[in-house]
């Protein structure tokens, strides 16, 4: 698809990001700040934080999507010129965190925006955010995969479950 091709072209170059807090406790925002310090230095990948979504290539979303912020975040997303990528930083943005079912929260960022990359953690270490960026840029491989283990009746066995053995689980 042309969008994917454009993202492949754009991502390895200088990525300008706009950071949106849509209800985070500020833990994740502090870690994003850490990533920009000389110690972690995300700028060596060409990353720069900009003050306006109209200048950005990527949107960094932290925090659960609250009812109040959802329309504003949607407008911010629409203001980012195409092609754009969305990073969800922190457990709140990836799945709603522990607020996933509270009355004022819609859920994770993917309830409102099409999220391209998730960095779970509460808050994620600065290294985890760097790993997320590096994985999105194709510099490092993805480490995480689904865990499946089964305990048998007679001898205990740990093995990969086949696809058809897994429970079907719907998510709220």
């Amino acid at each position, binding site marked *: 698809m042309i969008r994917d091709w454009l993202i492949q072209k754009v991502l390895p170059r200088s990525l300008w990001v706009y950071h949106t807090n849509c209800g985070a406790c500020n833990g994740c925002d502090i870690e994003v700040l850490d990533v920009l310090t000389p110690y972690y230095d995300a700028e060596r990948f060409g990353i720069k934080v900009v003050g306006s979504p109209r200048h950005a290539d990527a949107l960094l979303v932290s925090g659960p999507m609250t009812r109040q912020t959802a329309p504003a975040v949607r407008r911010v997303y629409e203001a980012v010129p195409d092609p754009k990528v969305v990073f969800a930083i922190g457990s709140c943005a990836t799945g709603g965190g522990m607020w996933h079912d509270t009355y004022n929260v819609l859920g994770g960022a993917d309830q409102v925006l099409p999220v391209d990359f998730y960095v779970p953690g509460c808050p994620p270490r600065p290294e985890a955010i760097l790993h997320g960026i*590096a994985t999105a840029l194709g510099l490092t491989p993805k480490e995480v995969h689904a865990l499946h283990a089964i305990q048998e009746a007679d001898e205990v066995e740990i093995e990969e479950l086949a696809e058809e053995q897994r429970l079907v689980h719907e998510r709220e």
Partner: protein
Amino acid sequence: MTIASKLKEALLCMKAGRVTLPYPFEPHDPEEGFRGLPKVDVNKCIGCGGCANVCPARLIRVIDKDQSTRVLVFLYERCTFCGRCAEVCPEGAIEMTRDFELSTDDVHDDMIGEYHIFMGPCERCGRCYRPPTALDKLMKPGMREDTIDRKCPMLCPGRTEEKE
């Protein structure tokens, strides 16, 4: 004056040398006591559901798949890495690993754990059960289908008769 201060700053920077971590290209392990992804050791788990009871993000689902299998489903994408599940587990089955490189492009497929625990079904009511404490476990060896004794276990909530 300003040039002197600039020179001083440059000197300071030269003395400090390179401070940037080479991180994504070289590993950088977390500090002692870091809590990463909680993993369940299915050999130790007794399926008591204590972890699901305390998890603040309510991400652990306990499903009785059939009469002898209890499934713990961890929806890791909203885990807050608080370690309550590991703290409360009576068997020490949950380990807070040091994995922090959890970034993924498909959170619904990758951030999930599914653990199938074998449970002995009660002969009388057919429900999954395990003795509640390790002491009870010592006294009641017949938890499993193959070694189960013929008496209805005293701890079974569904027991109606046979008081000794």
